[in-house]
């Protein structure tokens, strides 16, 4: 599996970006890095990066983002697991759509794969689209995240018949959305924490227990 190499790729990209001359299309005033804002908003300012470590019930995970010089896009890598039994490894891009002093609204598109172990096992290529709405400034940043996750399940049936072997493939898409509400607090430059509530929906329409998590967020340097 490659999630670590994915993250490594993004982290390795950071110094090169950091060496670029400062370009700040962000209408917000320049200031010290806000990793908690960046992480909760889903995208960093140009030259910035953020990595967050999540632990709670049911989710554990790590997510990294780094701004790229292309069209305001961030490169994003994420490995997230529910109870270490339903793991999603995803990579892709995010972008701030609305970015004002009051709010930041970002969108994110990730692709990758998911593996679920145990008695409800399943696996397949996966995609996740996410909307994040966060307060646009301040030491305390509330943020709402809505994610829609889909996995493509391909079942192969090998049929021995009198005419020979026939292979049938059936495909289905399973959906599992998650909504989260976080409050992040900047502890010191480059380091923040956040706490949040999760409302996952693992296998709609069945009931899912809500959850909660803590994030440690590091990042920074312009």
């Amino acid at each position, binding site marked *: 599996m490659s999630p670590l190499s994915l993250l490594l790729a993004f982290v390795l990209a950071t110094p090169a970006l950091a060496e670029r001359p400062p370009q700040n299309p962000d209408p917000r005033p320049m200031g010290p890095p806000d990793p908690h804002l960046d992480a909760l908003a889903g995208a960093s300012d140009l030259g910035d990066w953020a990595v967050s470590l999540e632990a709670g019930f049911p989710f554990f995970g790590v997510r990294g983002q780094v701004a790229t010089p292309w069209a305001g896009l961030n490169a994003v890598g994420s490995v997230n697991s529910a109870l270490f039994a339903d793991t999603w490894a995803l990579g892709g891009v995010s972008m701030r759509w609305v970015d004002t002093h009051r709010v930041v609204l970002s969108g994110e598109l990730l692709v990758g794969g998911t593996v679920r172990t145990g008695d409800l096992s399943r696996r397949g290529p996966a995609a996740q689209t996410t909307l994040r709405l966060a307060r646009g400034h301040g030491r305390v940043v509330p943020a709402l995240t809505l994610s829609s996750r889909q996995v493509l399940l391909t079942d192969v*049936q090998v049929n021995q018949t009198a005419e020979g072997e026939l292979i049938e493939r059936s495909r289905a898409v399973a959906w599992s959305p998650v909504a989260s509400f976080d409050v992040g607090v900047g502890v010191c430059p480059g380091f923040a924490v956040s706490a949040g509530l999760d409302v996952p929906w693992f296998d709609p329409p069945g009931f899912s227990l809500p959850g909660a998590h803590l994030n440690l967020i590091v990042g920074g340097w312009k």
Partner: protein
Amino acid sequence: MSRPMLLMLSLSPLLGCVNSRTQWIEVTVTTTLLAEEGLSGPVYGEWNHTWSGEGELRVPLLPFEDFTAEGPGVSTSTFRAPLDGVEGLTLYAWMDLDGDGLHCAPGVTDEPAGLAEALPYPATEAEVTLTLDAPCLGAEALWDGG
């Protein structure tokens, strides 16, 4: 190596994932049903995996497909049977003499049943001869240990 290429390589093991892979066989079974002369009626039953499970869960006779025939005689059935974790193909059948759709409802004592293994199996064509001569017994009561 470019970053996009690295990304694609990192994801490739996941993109190719198959959720499940199961093996099946499409089998046509020629069934000869024998019964005492004069007895007639529709015949119902099930195709069973002769064995399934492992260890303490290993067990004979797991029904997986319904069987019907108009009566004694020769008929053919074509169906798909799973192959993973199971062995053998055994037919259980009974004759519905009173037409109530039930095998020996309370008070009924004469509806004959039988059990026989189809061979060769697994194969796309198999044969089984089953004698309906055991009144009111379920498949489990006719199982002799294989």
